[in-house]
């Protein structure tokens, strides 16, 4: 049921059977999160990326997988376009460690930049098309120049034609990727760039789609985990007799601090997990949530300086106008709708894991560590789960499924409960950000000091750190300790991958200025401290937190300068693509100029306002500007967005309908995260572990209008797009609340009680 790469190729009568599978012993772990790694599948070889079968159909192999964001369809379009074959002739195989190249994790808005620009999958398809043209030219005995290719047929000037399958069908190309291969020009695109309906649609809507939750293997048993009652607890003992009467129970699995049960049915497993008596030694008390942000500053920290012009303190000390503000962002949950699930079939010398992980190859290596098995004996087959939005429980559940299957010697399907999912995940980081800036009499920012505190523990497990998630830690691997240390002077390139540096800074490091703005006197210092909970990437990781604080603060500066927020931004920006989206959104949204909050009130006790925010995502991976129109109920404190207008530039668009879907979903998810989402905890454990205790905007929410403007400059590379709209949403809403009410809200989420408190103490802006 799980064809090998050989079978993929043999299945269509291909002669391609000699796929090179060098031993992965001694294999180097990859040298970067998003790059293509050394593996048994050589990413430099064309045959690693695609094959043309004897019947002319195409199989392409990618290390970037679809979890609902549409990249499966877009990559299929890409291959069809570059190869000049019909879309329905292309079958894409995604993230299966047996057959696809290792492209690390599918994350960080990197799939499009990685596979759609002049490298990897795009380059492979272009290399293949040129190779086919060359073969046809040899066949015709004439130069390539006069040949045309359409729908997998090469035709010469005199009308002779040859089909791809007659040139290479079922055979290896035996070529390396050709950096000189030409991409098809965007003006000639017929498949890529079109709103091709997502290929999974019909199966999804009719209930036929196979999620990882549906994988069934002969002899498969069902598992449940038994989590400790408190964070940091350690196992004392398990009372096996407490479940001896549970029918269908196969085994209680215990390893280090991990406890789970395996049974013949889900019902039995769930029953046993509830009934099992376990003695735990409690962990240390958790810090108080009420004073959590204040306590961050007292922790030992690992510091980093993103920028330091060394003159900021002096300039602030002598400045006439100084604005300061403090922003907080809470821990938030991925809260996948489907609790995570994985199926593992571990035999004596090999293992297969069906997993919804974003990181098939890294998961393979971590599972191999946990099983004590060479990595090349473990196969991870990506199988889509519920939308993850980052590091949800998919990696954790995969590790434990593997260990449980190994322990019982049979395949195990492990299903997390809602509490397993939301009580123990790698939450999106909380963040405390303090800003100070000076203005001159001309309303120009003359110095900007920014300091932030980020609680952190664990993250993606990568290739060798299973302890970065709860299951690996329970199984005996600790997350890397925080090593406190002072910041070194910044050197090298400004990366700004987490959007820590506000867009308005010039970003100068050793005379090289790479920021998007013009403020030269700048210091950006971060303090990473130990988090009481696991943390990890959640859609727009740190970018959303940082952009909230940066884009609200620039509004506060505009107010102090007596300037319109759009004009004030433009005055301090120099990055032309960011300027372009800002201008485009101001026009499309009919931005109303103002130098102070307009505080428009409606007859029904509502105040109405408009706010703006912009970002160059990760410094240069997508550009967006968003205008939010919101109503604030002055009595209840409820915030209701009415309309969003966004301008977005992500370079050439692969599928505009898919992009719209991402932008709309990002804005609404961003609205939910702005208004209601917050992880809560008591002295022992996280208490927001279901949909009553963790809020989300449900389908009864009165959805605002969303208008999208695409800004499409020519001659630029494709960037990420799926995380840009969410990144600017909290700041645009907060700035709109200020325009509506004159109350500045600096703490996410913008709950009614916080709004009411801000209304009661409104002071027309920041403390001077």
């Amino acid at each position, binding site marked *: 049921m799980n064809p090998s790469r050989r079978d993929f190729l043999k299945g269509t009568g291909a002669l391609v059977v000699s796929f090179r599978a060098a031993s992965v012993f001694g294999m180097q772990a990859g040298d970067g999160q998003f790059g293509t790694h050394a593996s048994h599948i050589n990413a430099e070889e064309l045959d690693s990326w695609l094959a043309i079968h004897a019947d002319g159909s195409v199989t392409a192999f990618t290390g970037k997988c679809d979890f609902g964001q549409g990249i499966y369809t877009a990559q299929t379009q890409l291959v069809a376009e570059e190869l000049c074959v019909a879309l329905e002739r292309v079958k894409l195989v995604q993230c299966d460690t047996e057959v696809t190249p290792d492209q690390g994790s599918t994350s960080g808005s990197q799939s499009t930049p990685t596979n759609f620009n002049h490298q990897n999958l795009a380059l492979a398809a272009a290399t293949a098309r040129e190779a086919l043209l060359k073969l046809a030219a040899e066949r015709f005995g004439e130069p390539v120049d006069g040949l045309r290719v359409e729908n997998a047929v090469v035709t010469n000037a005199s009308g002779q034609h040859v089909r791809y399958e007659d040139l290479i069908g079922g055979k290896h190309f035996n070529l390396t990727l050709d950096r000189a291969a030409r991409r098809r020009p965007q003006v000639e695109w017929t498949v890529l760039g079109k709103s091709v309906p997502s290929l999974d649609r019909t199966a999804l809507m009719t209930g036929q789609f196979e999620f990882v939750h549906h994988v069934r293997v002969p002899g498969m048993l069902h598992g449940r985990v038994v989590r400790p009652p408190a964070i940091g607890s350690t196992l004392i003992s398990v009372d096996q007799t407490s479940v001896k009467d549970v029918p269908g129970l196969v085994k209680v699995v215990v390893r280090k601090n991990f406890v789970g049960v395996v049974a013949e049915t889900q019902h039995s497993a769930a029953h046993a997990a509830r009934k099992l008596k376990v003695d735990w030694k409690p962990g240390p008390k958790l810090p108080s949530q009420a004073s959590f942000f204040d306590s961050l500053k007292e922790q030992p920290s690992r510091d980093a300086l993103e920028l330091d012009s060394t003159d900021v303190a002096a300039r602030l000390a002598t400045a006439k106008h100084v604005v300061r503000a403090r922003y907080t962002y809470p821990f938030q949950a991925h809260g996948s709708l489907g609790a995570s699930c994985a199926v593992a079939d571990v035999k004596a010398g090999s293992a297969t894991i069906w997993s919804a992980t974003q990181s098939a190859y890294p998961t393979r290596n971590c599972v191999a560590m946990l099983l004590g098995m060479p990595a090349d004996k473990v196969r991870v087959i990506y199988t889509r789960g*519920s939308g993850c939005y980052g590091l949800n429980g998919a990696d954790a559940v995969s590790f434990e499924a593997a260990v449980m299957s190994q322990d019982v010697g049979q395949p195990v399907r492990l299903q997390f409960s809602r509490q397993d999912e939301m009580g123990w995940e790698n939450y999106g980081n909380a963040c405390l950000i303090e800003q100070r800036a000076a203005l001159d009499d001309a309303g120009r920012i003359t110095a900007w000091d920014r300091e932030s505190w980020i609680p952190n523990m664990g993250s993606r497990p990568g290739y060798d750190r299973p302890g970065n998630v709860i299951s690996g830690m329970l199984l005996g691997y600790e997350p890397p300790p925080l090593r406190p240390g002072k910041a070194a002077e910044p050197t090298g390139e400004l990366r700004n991958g987490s959007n820590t540096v506000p867009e308005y800074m010039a970003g100068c490091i050793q005379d090289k200025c790479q920021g998007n703005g013009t403020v030269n006197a700048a210091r950006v210092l971060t303090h990473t401290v130990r988090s009481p909970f696991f943390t990890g990437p959640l859609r727009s990781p740190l970018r959303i937190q940082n952009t909230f604080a940066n884009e609200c603060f620039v509004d506060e500066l505009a107010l102090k300068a007596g300037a319109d927020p759009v004009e004030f931004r433009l005055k301090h920006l120099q990055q032309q693509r960011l300027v372009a989206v800002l201008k485009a959104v101001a026009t499309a949204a009919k931005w109303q100029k103002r130098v102070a909050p307009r505080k428009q009130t409606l007859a029904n006790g509502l105040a109405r306002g408009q706010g703006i925010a912009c970002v160059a995502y990760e410094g240069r991976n997508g550009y967006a500007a968003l205008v939010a129109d919101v109503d604030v109920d002055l009595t209840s404190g409820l915030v209701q967005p009415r309309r969003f207008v966004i301008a977005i530039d992500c370079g050439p668009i692969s599928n505009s309908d898919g992009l719209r879907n991402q932008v709309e*979903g990002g804005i609404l998810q961003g609205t939910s995260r702005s208004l209601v989402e917050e992880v809560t905890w008591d002295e022992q454990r996280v208490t927001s572990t279901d949909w009553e205790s963790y809020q989300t905007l*449900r*389908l009864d929410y009165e959805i605002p209008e969303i208008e999208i403007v695409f800004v499409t400059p020519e001659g630029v590379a494709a960037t990420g797009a799926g995380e840009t709209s969410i990144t600017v949403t909290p700041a645009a809403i907060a700035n709109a609340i200020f325009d509506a009410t004159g109350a500045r809200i600096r703490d996410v989420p913008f709950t009614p009680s916080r709004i009411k408190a801000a209304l009661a103490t409104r002071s027309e802006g920041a403390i001077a």
Partner: protein
Amino acid sequence: MAAITLRVNGQTRTVNVDPATPLLYVLNDDLDLRGPRFGCGMAQCGACTVIMGDHVVRSCVKPVGAVGAEEITTLEGLGTPEKPHPLQQAFIEEGAAQCGFCLSGVILTAKTVLDVNPSATDQDIRNALGGVICRCFAHTRILRAIRKYADARRA
């Protein structure tokens, strides 16, 4: 364990299970159905929704022994890829999903509310969907697809 006979998607199926087993597990594990899915196990999200008779039920908390002879319809029982139900067709046309894990709750709940009240307003539809969660926030397209179906149905 007991032999329990169910009417599912027009077929009669007999399973031998503990009657306390949630209907969801029987649909997934014994009848190999993929439409209803485990979301929370607490009737809070809607991912496990099925139609029983003329109303929606959260199959994750419904003991299979309490189902009786009532006809159960799952998402795959509503229509097929070859012949989708018009509401599913509207979702296909509007691309009204991202990951799609929520769709049983969304589509089956919308169908029942419109079966009961074909002239349901957007507000009525939203109210009916108050217990359904979509974490990808495909809300805009979801409500557009339901409106499209509702309008076509009345025309």
